[in-house]
């Protein structure tokens, strides 16, 4: 069930792409959190991050805290995190 939803999210075209590559702590997470808060419910955001701790721990933490499904994929030297904002 959860796996299906994540698989679907993986194949969803994002509404917006947010590029925080080149930023270091705390900016990738701070900016992503703000961006997600200001985004309308139902939108899918793809965040590009090349700062390891933000990509692997903090941003997934923000998504999980809000129960927003996310998919994390490593692509070369950066990560793509696709988040669906399912609730306020």
């Amino acid at each position, binding site marked *: 069930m959860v796996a299906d939803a994540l698989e679907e999210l993986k194949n969803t075209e994002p509404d917006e792409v947010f590029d925080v590559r080149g930023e270091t702590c*705390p900016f990738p997470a701070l900016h992503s959190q703000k961006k997600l808060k200001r985004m309308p419910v139902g939108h899918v955001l793809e965040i590009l991050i090349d700062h390891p701790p933000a990509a692997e721990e903090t941003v997934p933490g923000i998504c999980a805290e809000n129960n927003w499904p996310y998919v994390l994929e490593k692509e070369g030297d950066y990560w793509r995190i696709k988040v669906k904002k399912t609730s306020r």
Partner: protein
Amino acid sequence: MYNLSFLSNLPSFIPGWAIVAIFLILGILFGIVLERSRFCFTTAFQETMEFRNPWILQGVFLFLGISAVLMSVLTQFGIVQPAIDHQGWFTVVGGFLFGVGIAMCGACASGQLFRSGSGYVANWMEFIGAGLGGIVFALFFYQQVEAPAVAATKAITIWGALGLPPLAWGIISGGLLILLAVYLRRFLPQKKAAQYKEKRFTFSLKQPWHPYAGAVALAVMTVVYVTLAEGVSMSVNTPNTLTIAWLVNFITQPFGLNLVSSPWFTQGVVHGQVLSRLTPLDLNQFSYPHYGHHLGYVALGLWLFIPITILGAFISSKIAGEFRLRVPGKPSKLLWYLVGGMIMGFGASVALGCNIAAWSDSFAVRLDMSGMLFSVGLFPGVWFGTRLDEWVAERIWGFGRPAPKVVKKAPAD
């Protein structure tokens, strides 16, 4: 007595450079441990305060706890006598400035070292800034304000104030810190996601480490360092200042400002000769038995330990394939890091230590009051610095406006 004698009193047929080499190897290992476990105290504080995510903080507490127990055993049996720093208002004020600086840069005094090594150019600016901040302190603050303020205070250990043996306090405080570290693990928000994979407890050079692994390695390294350094806590800010001062001196000397003989850098006059922190090998002339003829090499080793850490982090990030030169998109960010570094370096100098010497080693090594006083300034400082970050990011670096970085379609690269 072992204290203040072992390394600096090694027989003279052992070359002094061997002592320096020991610290260089330790420094490289320190860089590897920091880089692999991404052990950044600023990340620990900021993520806990901003995102309620104690991912690194759990490691920090475990490191403090293990080290406190081990060090209290060594202290109790007189094997090491940790040198206790003075503490007073300057610890709080310095802690606040330090907190603002590290929040602006997103990396503490030790964090900047491994970030620099893994290719973050902004943190090179922080390192330079921290050194400059230390020099500003040395030239304009040390003699005028700091020295009299420090002289008016005392060095206090918590166990001494409570009338307990060091071992008892080490086990009580260390035990509590270890329990806290384990308890914090329950609050990791990312664990709520089904697909989240927690990092493994590993010491592999190819993988990122769990913060607990970093904590164990750092605790062991701290105990080894303090034992070899004859009770001196691990200092980052002083060697950082010395490194930059050594370079700056090439520029200022022709203009008549020689940092070697300026206040703070000089440690005293012996037989008519000025002993300077910038020329540590002069200390070898101390030949009376208590100090030892290799003292200068110990001092040089403690200095080079810090810059060599950057090399350790470089090696480790290369092995893991994570090294990449990262230049911030906006040049003004480099200036921001330089200024943040200066505030950090100045603050650490005022507080008589950085996040290691004034904060963590207070709980982990000396069991004194400075860490608690430093915290009183540090956390408001980090909070304030993060707000500054946000404000500048919104208004100057263009976040919130339709930034050019926000694109509809993902770039192909």
